[in-house]
């Protein structure tokens, strides 16, 4: 009797998740599997016209990609963006969140909206404006540098500076989103903790380090992982600002993948890059979760 009920419940449960499972299966697992198979072939423009000329090449796409100096260059650029842009973005968002949540701040809603505005602005419009800011002769960025007596920089034209310029723009564009998550996290911290600490004579800094930061632990994990995943997939910013130049200084892995797959129509090589990126992102996520667990102990 009980078994039958359990079975019925089981069935009902499956029936409820089935639509979602089918959708995920059809629109996620099947394409991913197809992509994996694709990455073991040399599917290219000739094969689009005549599928019979696609060859199974085993791991050659992977070997080719790993032997391509451009892949390592793109990997370096991507890691530069992830390792510098990620923390910078998280810190900026946290500071912004603290500022807009502070009891001393008036018009909190207004500031939140203002800080959030870049997130909802079209990237292309943002890129156009930032290209003006970065213009070497007449741009605002160099005008500011000159005002401080610093030698101006060819932001988007100099391979040494281009990626940094993209990072600054991307941080500005995206910090609002993480800020909102931090604001929510801050609101979840019980006020009593701060009051108790204040009674015990803890300085604002001590309160921040011993109450705010630890309480935000899960938020940090979420923000960190989401930011990292997004940063690994950096594409649109350099695509509209620099097209990957100068001297490939802003070519990222996703950009390389896009070029291989949709510009040169070497779908096999493009798929191989996608899976390498997937492995990297997986490793990054696991590492962050591990670190988070370590620090909590």
């Amino acid at each position, binding site marked *: 009797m009980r078994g039958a009920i359990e079975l019925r419940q089981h069935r009902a449960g499956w029936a409820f998740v089935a639509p979602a499972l089918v959708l995920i299966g059809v629109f996620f697992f099947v394409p991913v599997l197809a992509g994996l198979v694709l990455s073991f072939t040399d599917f290219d*423009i000739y094969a689009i016209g005549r599928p019979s*000329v696609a060859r199974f090449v085993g791991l050659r796409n992977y070997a080719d990609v790993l032997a391509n100096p451009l892949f390592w260059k793109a990997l370096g650029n991507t890691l530069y963006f992830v390792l510098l842009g990620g923390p910078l973005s998280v810190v900026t968002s946290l500071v912004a969140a603290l500022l807009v949540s502070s009891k001393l701040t008036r018009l909190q809603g207004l500031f939140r909206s203002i800080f959030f505005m870049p997130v909802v602005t079209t990237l292309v419009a943002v890129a156009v404006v930032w290209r003006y800011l970065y213009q*070497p002769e007449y741009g605002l960025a160099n005008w500011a540098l000159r005002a401080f007596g610093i030698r101006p920089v060819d932001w988007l034209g100099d391979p040494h500076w281009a990626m940094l310029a993209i990072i600054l723009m991307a941080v500005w564009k995206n910090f609002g989103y993480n800020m909102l998550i931090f604001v929510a996290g801050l609101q979840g911290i019980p006020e009593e903790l701060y009051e108790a600490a204040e009674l015990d004579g803890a300085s604002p800094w001590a309160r921040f380090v011993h109450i705010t930061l630890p309480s935000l632990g899960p938020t940090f994990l979420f923000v960190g992982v989401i930011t990292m995943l997004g940063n690994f997939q950096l594409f649109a910013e350099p695509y509209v600002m620099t097209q990957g130049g*100068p001297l*490939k200084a802003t070519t990222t892995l996703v950009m390389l993948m896009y070029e291989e797959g*949709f510009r040169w129509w070497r779908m096999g090589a493009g798929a191989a890059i996608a899976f390498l990126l997937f492995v990297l992102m997986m490793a990054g996520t696991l590492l962050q979760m591990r670190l988070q667990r370590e620090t909590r102990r």
Partner: protein
Amino acid sequence: MAGLALPGPLTSRAARALAVAGLVALAGCRGAGEARTTVRFWAMGREGEVVQELVRDFERENPTVRVIVQQMPWDAAHEKLLTAFVGRSTPDLAQLGNTWIPEFVALRAVEPLGPWLAGSRAVAESSYFAGIWDTNVVDGVPYGVPWYVDTRVLFYRRDLLRQAGWDSIPGGWSEWLRAMEDVKRLGRGRFAIFLPTNEYTPWIVLGMQAGSPLLRDGESRGDFSGPEYRRAAAFYLEVFRRGLAPNVAGATIANRYQEFERGTFAMYISGPWDVGEFGRRLSPAMKGAWFIATLPGPDGPASGVSSAGGSSLVLFRDSRHKREAWRLVEYLSRPEVQLRFQRLCGNLPARLEAWRDSSLANDPFARVFERQLRRVVSTPKVPEWENISKSLQDCVESMVLGHAPPDSALASLDRRVDRILEKRRWLLERERRRVAGGTAEAR
């Protein structure tokens, strides 16, 4: 993306027929119920806009044909056409940049035009610039009819050149280099010429001028370390080495028109579209102070070849209205329609007859273009060409900006090109073996 009126990639043949029937029914509202054939025509950018006007006249001449022109932005056109091909929803005819033709031939997406041309009195190879026509022919088979043409010429500051003691742009590389030196010495302009490293066409053109085939062995391997291309590279690297051209990527010169007017540089290689742009963007005082010239060549003017650019009209294999589509191609190829098209959007006509019209024959700019168009060479017609030219651009950037030694940079470019062409070599080899196997069997 495929447009509301067009069937999506997954619709069955029946649904497609229904959709077409629906369109015909809609169109038939004003006709007397007689069935009209719908021809779908995809065209790019400004061309797609102005061609609508020409098409209306075509419809008046051919009351049984209705043409739907779909306009695509240039940036998205290539991808959209390929997606349409994969989704089996290509139009009946389209405008293709003529350098894209080999790609669509490799895809087997476009119709060989041999039989159509043989039966046509309106379109014949002899009424086109030879170099332009050639871009439409892959392995001896024509696939496109040139619609409009373009090529690169040298824009220059007549006043600055005159100040430097040169009446016109000389025809040979060595004199050209001397003229650049003299212009630079004016002091007013800090450089003589602007050669942006992120535009690859000049690097290809200079190589072709030096006689480089660019690819060798049946276009299956790179030939950039061959003596001809090395000669071209030596020349343009010398231009940079002497400081005659700013060694910066194109984006760094914020406004090339402004800098041209200031005299930062006095020469610039560009195409017909810039004649209008220069006219619009330079101040009125500059009128008459600049002009264009055919490109100098390494061994005098005859070797001053340039790129064979422009757009062609192609039919798609999957089309079921090829006859009507071909009639539209013939219509758009008429000299008088070509001239109207030129007046509407400024694109240079492909038909030689059109160039005899007084509006072009008396235009000094058009005359320079006509002379250059008689000396244009097609780039290798392999579908990988864009990828190869992008690799060449990277190589030039590394030589000019990164100061890589030319011999090793060009050798490594060849290795990269050989890797890109690996599949093509395999296909050629397979073809050869099949032919050999076929004759063995016959024996």
